């Protein structure tokens, strides 16, 4: 069965995050001075063919730990696991 997985990877708290800082700091120059927190990360969306939901979660976790994130600097969060067969690929917009 095909399971869709959505996952977010962000730099760990406490690490300097130059990209988030630069984007955040340039917001006032564009007229948005009311944003008091901003962080950028990576978003992964993939489909895993797995016997069941638990297996899908387990594989997604392993992929995140071994490959999609670097535990030295990043943390990951699985946001959603769903049965993908029925859902079209474009989840966006």
């Amino acid at each position: 069965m095909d399971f869709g997985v959505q996952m977010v990877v962000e730099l760990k708290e406490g690490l300097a995050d130059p990209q988030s800082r630069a984007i955040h700091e340039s917001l006032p120059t564009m007229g948005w001075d009311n944003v008091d927190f901003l962080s950028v990360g990576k978003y992964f969306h993939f489909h895993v063919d797995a016997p069941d939901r638990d297996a899908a979660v387990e594989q997604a976790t392993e992929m995140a730990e071994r490959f999609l994130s670097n535990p030295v600097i990043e943390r990951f969060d699985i946001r959603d696991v769903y049965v993908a067969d029925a859902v079209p690929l474009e989840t966006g917009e």
Partner: protein
Amino acid sequence: MTVRVGVVTFPGSLDDRDALRAVATMGAEPVSIWHGDRDLGGVDAVILPGGFSYGDHLRAGAIARFARVMDAVRAFAHDGGPVLGVCNGFQVLCEAGLLPGALIRNRSLSFVCRWVNLRTENPSGNFTNWPDGEVIQIPIKHGEGQFVADESTLDRLERGGQVALRYCSPSGGVDDGFNPNGAARNIAGIRNQRGNVVGLMPHPEHAVDPDLGPTGGQAVLEWLIASAHARQPEHAVSAR
């Protein structure tokens, strides 16, 4: 016997040919190693060169560390063989867990190519052939060269004399004004505890030919070649 130095080519390696040329300039025999090889062909030292292996997608070095040749590199390193990772090679070594820490985007968010001053470090003198306290010039060229690690790891690196190079002023002073990428404690290069695995952001292979500029890279390659030489059978025996 001439030392044979292997240079690994991953898809997307860029400074591999430059590393091979620099090895030859330094009087050793350059050997090209393909990422898909299972063994290192009996070389005495290994260089993981600069470049954008696998396009640096995901994170620099993240995909390359799974290349087949990396099993052999890991075994070689565990066996005490000298391994030098330059730029992307350094990133691969960190991703592979052969060196601690990680390399993230430069503080400026921009790629930077420039000659920098570097202070060599070997405070205890434990690491044979690596000078201590000399200022050398080598160019850097990277977008993700900011070395980071947690404080305890950084302290451990310092205690063990594992910082190999630091960005510094022309006279050797370490201050943030001479830090080109925001690296923690101005760290430009580190070694493992044993000292046989070294990772550097600067490119020593681009600093060996006097026609092209200063020759600070010679010291680094001399270390690699001398370390390899010391491990060759005849020397290994006499060293015992």
